[in-house]
């Protein structure tokens, strides 16, 4: 009779000792919505199975190491689903108590998820580059850590202006995302004073992307396709669908450099980046995951670190507090790009320098010197507040 209360008392005492006073738990999910696509032109570009998840894993490790000093525990769940299962997966994650969710998806899928998620969830966009998601279709429950298409196109045109390669032959693909990207290059050219002297469309006629000795045909096709263009300094390829751009370098009729979707590419990250302490960051990633870092991995790492930083500095873990801190003037994030990254409060876009790479080394980093802005040179990349039609952020 007297034994039970004693056992209870001991149990309660043990519980008290086991639970640190200020312990906080942060549950973060990464939801990747996979689409069915053919193999890439280069097999080097084939996506690894853990694309994006690996970056989140490193971000989670970084947050856990820091959390050990602040009594904060981080849990990470990663999940890949097909497009038609994305909604159900989001509901399941919510039911399991995940309300900080990083999403790697195409623009349409992300928009649907953000409408379904509701205000009690914060989504971090680590994939979609669509301008409209940061503009007329912006949602208060989405923060964008991946750069937008206009940030990427602006970063290329700024570099071309610095080079004085101002006459552009724009070659775009026939897919909707190619059309959007081409439109961004037109706007960027107009914004910085470059001239698109001619445009050509490379129509995707379907068929296998890889054939034995395919290079023989490419060597004959591309010169003809680029023949007799208006005088130009550089070719810009707008080929987000990945159909033709890698074939342009060395095959164009006129000997001209290629930028955009091939040649000099604007990226949020690449595996050869070493400046600003990036070497250690690359090594930590490679040691943890056994491969080199992709853009999607950098972007999910960013998303994890945004959450980690907001939780540590604000001392709160709920989505509303994380969002409020991230959008506040106090937020700043060091992310191996030589300056602090902050959010644009008018549409939830993370400001960041864009790396320009030839695939081997960092050729340059935009914004280029001399492009000034009253707030930050980073705001010379992408649509700026006055042109922005996003109202979900109180603007």
């Amino acid at each position, binding site marked *: 009779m007297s034994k039970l209360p004693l056992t209870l008392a001991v149990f309660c005492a043990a519980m008290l000792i086991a639970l640190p006073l200020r312990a906080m738990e942060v549950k973060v999910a990464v939801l990747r919505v996979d689409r069915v696509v053919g193999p890439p032109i280069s097999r080097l570009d084939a996506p690894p199975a853990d694309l994006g998840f690996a970056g989140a894993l490193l971000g989670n490790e970084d947050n856990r190491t820091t959390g050990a*000093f602040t009594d904060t525990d981080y849990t990470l769940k990663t999940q890949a689903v097909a497009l038609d299962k994305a909604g159900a997966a989001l509901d399941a994650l919510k039911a399991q108590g995940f309300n900080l969710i990083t999403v790697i998806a195409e623009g349409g899928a992300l928009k649907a998820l953000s409408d379904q998620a509701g205000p009690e969830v914060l989504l971090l966009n680590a994939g979609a580059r669509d301008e409209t998601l940061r503009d007329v279709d912006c949602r208060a429950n989405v923060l964008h850590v991946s750069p937008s298409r206009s940030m990427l196109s602006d970063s290329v045109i700024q570099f071309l202006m610095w080079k004085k390669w101002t006459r552009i032959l724009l070659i775009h693909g026939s897919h909707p995302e190619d059309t959007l990207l081409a439109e961004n290059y037109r706007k960027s050219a107009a914004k910085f004073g470059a001239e698109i002297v001619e445009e050509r469309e490379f129509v995707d006629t379907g068929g296998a992307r890889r054939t034995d000795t395919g290079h023989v045909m490419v060597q004959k096709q591309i010169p003809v396709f680029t023949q007799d263009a208006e005088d130009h300094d550089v070719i810009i390829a707008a080929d987000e669908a990945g159909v033709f751009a890698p074939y342009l370098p060395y095959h164009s009729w006129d000997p001209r450099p290629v930028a955009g979707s091939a040649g000099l590419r604007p990226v949020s990250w690449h595996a050869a980046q070493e400046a600003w*302490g990036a070497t*250690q960051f690359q090594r*930590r990633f490679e040691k943890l995951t056994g491969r080199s870092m992709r853009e999607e991995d950098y972007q999910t790492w960013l998303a994890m670190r945004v959450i980690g930083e907001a939780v540590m500095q604000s001392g709160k873990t709920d989505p509303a507090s994380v969002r409020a801190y991230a959008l506040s003037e106090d937020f700043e994030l060091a992310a191996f790009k030589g300056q602090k990254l902050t959010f644009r409060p008018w549409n939830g876009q993370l400001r960041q320098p864009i790396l320009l790479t030839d695939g081997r080394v960092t050729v340059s980093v935009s914004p280029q010197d001399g492009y000034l802005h009253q707030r930050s040179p980073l705001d010379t990349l992408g649509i700026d507040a006055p042109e922005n039609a996003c109202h979900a952020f109180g603007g």
Partner: protein
Amino acid sequence: MLRSAVVLLSAVLMFAAPAEANKVFVTNERSNNVTVLDSQSWEVIATFPAGNRPRGITISPDGKELYVCASDDDTVRVFDPETYKELHTLPSGPDPELFALDPSGNPLYVANEDDNLVTVVDVKTRRVLAEIPVGVEPEGVAVSPDAKTIINTSETTNMAHFISASTYEIEHNVRVDQRPRYAEFTADGKKLYVSSEIGGTVSVIDLTASEPAIAKKINFAVPGILPEWLQPVGVKATKDGSRVFVALGPANRVAVIDAAKDEVLEYLLVGQRVWQMAFTPGEEFLITTNGNSNDVSIIDVKEETVIRSVQVGEQPWGVVVAPY
């Protein structure tokens, strides 16, 4: 007669020398060598190979051993400061960048960025005494004047960790701004300065209470320089507690701070991408490494002016001055 003449001559010589000539050692990150300067003539007197990607550099209190972090060799190389011959290496863990020597000359505390560890190395037995788990990407290391506390800054965790030098346990963590690089104690041990490169601030941590706490954050502003480029890295405090100098990286300036008020007095224009700094033993001069202009700037500490610059190797990174 002869004897008194010798005595007289010696006395004249003693007074004629305003400051001792010391050797100044500068690591050149890109050219993989160390440049040796004379602190009186400011001439380059030697250059010697120092392994791959030499960065952090320090010297033993007796001036007999020069320690260089050869980052790409994953080791600390030990050189004879007289002959410039390599004596041996020390186990440092991978990619050592910065370190600090105990005031007694042993042990050496090395930050290992890849493994989130501070490695404690006995420089006599050349053994690892302990590995202390810290935050993500440990960078700056400092030892308190009483040798009881080791400070480590972790660049991605954004903290200064206060580690007991007797138990190797972390006793306190102080949150600072983004990407903390360097930690510097005042000579009286009452204050600690921590620079945050990306945050653009120097945190002044008060050590007189029971727990360390941030007393102030020093901000920087230079007309005509974008705020993004005001990136504090190296920090040096004078022994008399009157001044603190802060290297501002790509802003090409060294900030002079009144240490009584912790306010910026002025900015001195130096070379490009100013990184680390070292005083001559009497603190007459402060030498700064300028990574993008391949030179060092010499600051007259009393006058607070830059008196000259000297070309060294490619991408100078660290600097130390021999005590004798």
